[in-house]
């Protein structure tokens, strides 16, 4: 039955397609898939859940009978082992097969008629696979790259808090440790994606957004100097060892002293849990609390092997108190203390969170300070904290002592220049600007993007997919320009030039292609310093 519905054209295998005839591969894969189907491994009769997410380690469970060992995480948790194994087995098969042709980068996605398999090799031999159901609803149209970005985000956030998966596996080869961490972590993460009872994956409606990038606040020079002066003070708050800091205003980044990668992770986390918006959303009627409890109920009901393992007492990754698994993404756990610092009991009572910085390869203590809409994340090197909480409170004292005046000044300056949520709206344009070098993006406010017609959004989604494909073909940065006319006569235009991308939707039906490119040109000159002025 499922095999009969499979069509050759449904298979698109990126990467491999570069070196081989698509048709030939399709046939091979069809045969491959059919074999798997026959073995009952590809059965997708899930319990109404449209999403499956699994993490597995190819180095584990190589022997017959030990297959379960390779599963590190599976969502939804309440599916049977055989289903889990069939999904993972299929994925593993595809990976092994495609590696024959492209050992460096195996498959990224497999599109079947009813499902999309999105692959992400998070760490060597550790794979994250997302299986999404293609239902008849029009909303379920997504860009593979956007889904992959979700996987990447989960992973990098996980690494930021717990360290790499491989290191946890090495620490505890039975896999119990990693499973006990994964389960609450990914569930907490997915919780953020759920709307009502359903998980809302980044669909075409979010095509003018870029996950895994930072949104920045544009600063006037004098404000920037004030900010930088504050950064200088924060830098030296722990004595001679230099602290790092990330400063946000509302949900926008103001300053960072971290590498782009680390900034993205910390920014993502801050926007999720620390900023004034994140803190206040906890108290709104759309309560995380309610959702959080319902989720933990389901998890307690479930009888997945992961959970059984997690109930075992194992040393936690952070090494705080043994047996307790830290859930950094837990909802409603941060509150603003009297001294302006944000406090949480996630890491234990009176314990300061620590995170792992990728670039510096060091663990740092995380202190968050908030004044109105200004959020400061201060990262103190662990070497500076010798006497535990005593030193932490010293650093806090230093911040209050030395930086308060500057914080007030910066907040005042930024509030004065704050243009509100629609500050970056450019009337007549719906756009997305991505700077891949700095991992920074800027887009039309979502409220404005929502006014676009569905056809336009679909066209932009299509456009972005095309650019994704083009980009994945070559490692080199190249310039390109693509214009698509949507069914409703809207223009979807993409311009890519040396690491920077501009996507734009222009809905004025009367516009000719010339008008549209002129519009892009003037936008580029006015808002992008002429970066995208190509002709």
């Amino acid at each position: 039955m499922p095999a009969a519905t499979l069509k050759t054209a449904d298979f698109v295998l990126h990467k491999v397609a570069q070196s081989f005839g698509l048709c030939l591969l399709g046939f091979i894969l069809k045969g491959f898939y059919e074999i798997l189907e026959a073995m009952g491994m590809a059965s997708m009769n899930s319990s109404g859940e449209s999403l499956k997410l699994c993490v597995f380690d190819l180095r584990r469970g190589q022997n017959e009978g030990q297959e379960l060992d390779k599963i590190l995480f599976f969502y939804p948790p309440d599916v049977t082992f055989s289903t889990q194994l069939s999904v993972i087995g299929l994925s593993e098969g595809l990976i092994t097969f495609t590696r024959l042709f492209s050992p460096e980068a195996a498959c990224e996605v497999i599109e079947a008629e009813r499902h999309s398999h999105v692959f992400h090799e998070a760490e060597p031999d550790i794979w994250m696979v997302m299986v999404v159901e293609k239902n008849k609803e029009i909303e379920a149209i997504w860009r593979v790259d956007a889904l992959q970005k979700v996987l990447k985000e989960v992973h990098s956030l996980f690494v930021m808090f717990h360290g790499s998966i491989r290191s946890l596996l090495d620490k505890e080869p039975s896999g119990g440790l990693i499973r006990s961490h994964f389960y609450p972590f990914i569930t907490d993460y997915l919780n953020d994606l759920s709307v009502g009872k359903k998980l809302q994956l980044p669909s075409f409606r979010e095509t003018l957004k870029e996950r895994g990038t930072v949104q920045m606040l544009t600063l006037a020079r004098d404000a920037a100097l004030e900010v930088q002066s504050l950064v200088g003070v924060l830098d030296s708050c722990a004595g001679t060892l230099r602290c790092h800091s990330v400063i946000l205003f509302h949900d926008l980044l103001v300053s960072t002293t971290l590498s782009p990668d680390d900034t993205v992770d910390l920014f993502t986390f801050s926007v999720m849990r620390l900023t004034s918006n994140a803190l206040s959303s906890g108290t709104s009627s759309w309560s995380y609390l309610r959702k959080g409890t319902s989720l933990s109920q389901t998890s307690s009901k479930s009888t997945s092997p992961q959970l059984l393992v997690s109930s075992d007492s194992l040393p936690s990754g952070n090494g705080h108190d043994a047996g307790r698994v830290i859930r950094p993404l837990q909802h409603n756990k941060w509150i603003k203390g009297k001294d302006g610092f944000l406090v949480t009991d996630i890491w234990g009572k009176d314990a300061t969170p620590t995170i792992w910085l990728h670039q510096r390869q060091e663990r740092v203590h995380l202190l968050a300070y908030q004044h109105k809409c200004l959020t400061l994340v201060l990262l103190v090197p662990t070497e500076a904290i010798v006497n535990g909480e005593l030193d932490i409170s010293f650093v806090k004292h230093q911040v209050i002592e030395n930086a308060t005046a500057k914080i007030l000044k910066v907040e005042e300056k930024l509030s004065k220049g704050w243009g509100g949520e629609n500050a970056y709206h450019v009337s007549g344009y719906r756009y997305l600007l991505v700077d891949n070098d700095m991992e920074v993006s800027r887009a039309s406010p979502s409220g404005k993007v929502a006014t676009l017609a569905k056809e336009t959004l679909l066209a932009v989604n299509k456009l972005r997919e095309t650019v994704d494909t083009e980009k994945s073909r070559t490692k080199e940065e190249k310039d390109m320009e693509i214009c698509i006319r949507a069914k409703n006569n809207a223009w979807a235009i993409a311009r890519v030039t040396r690491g920077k991308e501009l996507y734009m939707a222009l809905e004025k039906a009367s516009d000719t292609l010339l008008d549209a490119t002129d519009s892009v040109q003037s936008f580029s000159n006015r808002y992008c310093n002429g970066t995208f002025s190509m002709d």
Partner: protein
Amino acid sequence: MKEKNSATTASTLGRILATCSKQAKDYGSCVASKVHEIEKDLCLKQFLALKSCMQHTVKIMSPRPSSSQTSVGSGALSHAYIQHPSLRCNVPESRGLFYDDANRLLICVTSSQVFSWETATFNPDVSPSVDSIPEGPILSVRFSLDKKVIAVQRSDCEIQFFHRETKQTLTHKCRAGSESLLGFFWSDSPLCDLAVVKTSGMDLFACDSAMNLRLVETKKVNVNWYIYTHESRLVLLASGLQCKTITGFQLSTAGVVRLPKFEMTLASTESNSKPIISAGDVHLVTVYGRIYCVQVDMEAMLLHTYRFYRDAVVQQGSLPIYSSKLSVSVVDNLLLVHQIDAKVVIIYDLFVDSRAPVSAPLPLLWRGYQGSDTSPQAASKENESPESSTSSENIVMYEDAWTFLVPDLILDQTNKVLWRVHLDLEAISASSSDRTSLLEFLQRRKLEANKAKQLCLGIARALILERRPATQVTQAIDVLVTAYSYSVKAGIYKELKNGKTTATIPTNDGASPDNERGRASGSSIDEEEEEVEMNLPSGSADEQQESQLSSPAISPDELYKFVFASVEETMVDESDYLVAIITEFLRSISAEKLKVDLNIYVMTIRLLARSKRFAELSLFTTNKIIEPSKEVALQLLESGGQDPRVRKLGLDMLRQLSLHHEYISSLVQDGYYLEALRYAQKRKVTSVRSSLFLEAAFASNDMQHLAAILRVLSELIPGFKETSEYYTFHGLLNETSSSVAV
């Protein structure tokens, strides 16, 4: 060697202490009695007594202190000094020395002659001008402001005038018996030329060129004594039993202003004896364009200060006194209080609200030749030519015969020499620990602007090199930048390169006090009162014009050059710290809306790149903290060797600055031949030679690139196929690979 030294020191100390045992005991018992409440300066009186005794002993024991140094006093430690050579005014048969503060003339009279020396420039070699006058007693001498007339007070009822050119003589007498003459002074107010103070009041006269005196106005006041200084144009008339009631007039160029009458403060004694204020107890002090009056209150051992406004006199607090005899000088807007008995001088800066002294009480020092105060050569040189100088033995500090002249001169009546008091800014800055207030202090100095400036630069450098907390350095930088910004606005600051300093001191029509007021922090009086401060003639203007620099203000460019650029090398490992400091510097500059040498941006990029802070470098650039310029862009390109993202920033900057040639060359260098060609074509850049592309492509060893560019060029440029370039590269292409078709 060292041990020997310390041994001699110990024995010396022993002998000194034996001599001063009483004073030592006094001091010790004072400390012992107050040990529970002990605080600084509590037993200062006793301490000073002990100190002066010890100094005296040392002097006796080593009668030639110039063996190692040419200074007199307690070693070389002092903040103020008088310097050799002095102005010698020893005239045979001298009958007295006078000082005309309006003309800054030192006057020596004999029975029939008047010798006068210019002191404004204080040139010891200046020769006196000599005038003959008829014989007679002389109580005081003053030249008219145009120096054409010499006025001599003969008795308490007679003044004689002598015209120096026409030799005309005029005698002015007052009613004998009913009133007596106290004194007189010349004025430059439009109303009158001469003011004569009598016990019954003050007469103002106009005087024409023919020396006819015409009474203009009479101010009726009972006067016991009066004081006047030309620099303040202010005359204070004291009346009353205790001479406490003061009536003041200012005879400025704006007219004659009567000040409100005010009473001086005197502590009441337990006995019924009422102390009387004498003229010597009151001094007019002019600092920072403000007029103060300081008054000695011996009973309370306090020096009261009053500040004059046009229609108010406000008491400003009091300074402690440690001596029964006291005098004041003003050097470079600083108040020097000479505690004559204790033989020390205490320096106050009335600009700041705090009445704490600028530095600890230290003796006035006598110095030999300029700049060689501690070199033995100078001492020996001096000994070889004893007749040319006052040898050190003759100088007794704070001798009774010393007269303190306004503002900064000391007349030694015994030796008939005139000294000028100098400040030792180096010593003051060396003894100050609070660098921020020290910098503020130095920035207010005008007399030795260059030295103050160098000291400021040195302090700023030291702060950074010592790696002081950023907040401290920031404060220091703020002080320097605001001072510069102020002096630019006030028009005081002039670039060094202008050579001849033509700096103008702001005229005194209320403008300069207003500026001062703007700078004064928290002088609450100013805000309370609406009225304009008293007009003040800029008496010291000529003095300042002579000094090379009129202001110690340091421009941002100089700060960059002499502070940041000079510490860069030594701070290689501390670039994080240096960047933080530079950021603060830029912030400070931007707050004052000033500009700075763009090399500081280049340096910032270098520092950030050195510590691999590329993300921040990008932030600095996108936020325009680092202002775009060609130099900056080129530095970005250079630093971008380590990080392509930074290189891109540089490329973008070149493009935004429309530096086509550099942009195209960089693109070509990075291998973006076609982009570069397209850009050149679009912007019609003709300055880039076509061979640039060809050579770059050839150098890259990619024959396909070369072929493509040859093709594009031959299509773009008409007749390109006929050029020698085409032949050369076409030939090269064919040689290297025949497989690529052009």
